[in-house]
């Protein structure tokens, strides 16, 4: 821990004036610089104030994100997420984009700390583009996910919270990796990440087949997210779905999970159905 902190602690040459250049010009390749609290154990300091898991009443509550899933099937990779961000017990947003478009053929998902995911996946996007320029070909999903894993491994133990899936299509077909801030990087055909993942797994594992059609895959992804949002308080909002195929990814129209409830439970009749807020969506 101290070795990492020493590597990252500001040296004498990093005077306050140099630091005024904010995040933008200091980010070059993997040479991202961070200001740390002074003292022996900056990681413990950060944890005191920001880590929601170990410090229940942490002062600084970051937005956490929560049910994401992705699976490979015959026609590509289907990625589906909810859109709720919570900051402690408050819902910070119901419209978060948890699928990060790294480039037209690579997608990353967001679970855990929202800022951690979006920042590092943006750095990943930059590294992927540099790879393309240097090697005159697209980066593979395996290499992209490894880049991300190595980027965050340097900060292991410092409180980053990121559980992401890297999905794409490269020369060896559809690719899907799970990468997290603990240093894990694994490959599989099916993943679900986040506080609602247990509920999503239940639905996914019951109906998943590799040779599904695109419509079946979309329906499965939608249902899995819906069930997770229904049971997990930290998941909700809308279902965002993407399909990664050979020539890139395709985004689908958003669906409100409140509306999906009535679609999946046709036996439940709403009184004054015509006047209810989501009636227009239901009719469509």
């Amino acid at each position, binding site marked *: 821990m101290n070795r990492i902190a020493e590597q990252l602690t500001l040296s004498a040459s990093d005077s306050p004036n140099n630091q005024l250049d904010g995040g*933008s010009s200091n980010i070059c390749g993997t040479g991202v*610089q961070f200001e740390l609290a002074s003292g022996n154990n900056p990681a413990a300091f950060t944890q005191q104030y920001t880590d929601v898991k170990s410090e229940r009443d942490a002062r600084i509550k970051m937005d956490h994100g929560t049910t994401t899933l992705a699976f490979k099937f015959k026609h590509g990779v289907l990625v589906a997420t909810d859109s709720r961000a919570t900051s402690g017990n408050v819902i910070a947003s119901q419209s978060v984009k948890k699928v990060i478009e790294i480039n037209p053929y690579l997608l990353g998902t967001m679970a855990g700390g929202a*800022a*951690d995911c979006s920042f590092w996946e943006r750095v990943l996007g930059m590294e992927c583009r540099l790879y393309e320029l240097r090697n005159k070909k697209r980066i593979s999903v395996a290499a992209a996910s490894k880049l991300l894993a190595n980027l965050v491994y340097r900060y292991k133990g410092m409180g980053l919270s990121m559980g992401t899936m890297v999905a794409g299509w490269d020369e060896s077909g559809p690719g899907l990796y799970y990468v997290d801030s603990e240093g894990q990087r694994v490959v599989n055909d099916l993943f679900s990440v986040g506080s609602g993942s247990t509920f999503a797994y239940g639905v996914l594992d019951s109906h998943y087949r590799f040779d599904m059609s695109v419509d079946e895959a979309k329906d499965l992804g939608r249902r899995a997210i819906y069930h997770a949002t229904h049971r997990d308080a930290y998941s909700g909002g809308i279902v965002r779905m993407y399909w990664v195929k050979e020539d890139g990814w395709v985004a689908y129209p958003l669906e409100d999970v409140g509306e999906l409830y009535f679609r999946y439970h046709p036996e439940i009749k709403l009184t004054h159905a015509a006047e209810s807020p989501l009636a227009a969506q239901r009719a469509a």
Partner: protein
Amino acid sequence: MDFAAMQKQYPAQVPTEVHSHQNRWDPYVDNGGTSLAIAGADYVIVASDTRQSNGGYSINSRTEPKAFKLSNNVVLATSGFAADAKRLVEVLEQNALTYFYKHNKQMTAPAMAQMLSNTLYGRRFFPYYVFPILAGVDAQGKGALFAYDPVGNMERVNYQAYGSAAALVQPFLDNVVGFKNQRGADHNRLIERDEAMRFAVDAFTSATERDIYTGDWLDIFVIDKDGVKHEKRELKHD
């Protein structure tokens, strides 16, 4: 054996200072106050109160602004820790100036928004205890509003409230600006300037009634393609 004698006998092993866990160094203070912003088809309204508290029952100032004009078409509204907010504004202003010198053009609102996100994340391990809202107009002249968490997660939204009365104001905006939970309402409509102004002022007068940290004076900024206009209104001082 008493403590002094023990110290003499075991000089290096007996701790001479005892640190209570309550005496940890605490660099953050929540100075209270509330900020909100509403974006429309061709404008953004930013409103924030000017009361600064010391985190307890005392008021530091009744006239300390929380919203700052960063350029001719961008305003930053803050809440949380005032000292970090002040520093954040300084850093952003410097970065905007540097950008101008390097590129010979003013930073656009979306560019500033991304820069703010990166600046906040640069302090991921010693965060700015600030909840910023960046407001401006985009290249099409449409109102652009960006809301952040303290470590830089950015989302473009149509309205947002942060601060000590956020839990009172945000649900109100969800209903009248976002048309949430309204029967037969058109969710895609962006409200007009005068409606937004009334909602913003009403939100603050109501928040002032029920939140001790909100009140005194209200700073209102209206941003559109012609620039930034500022006005001040009075709120209850109790």
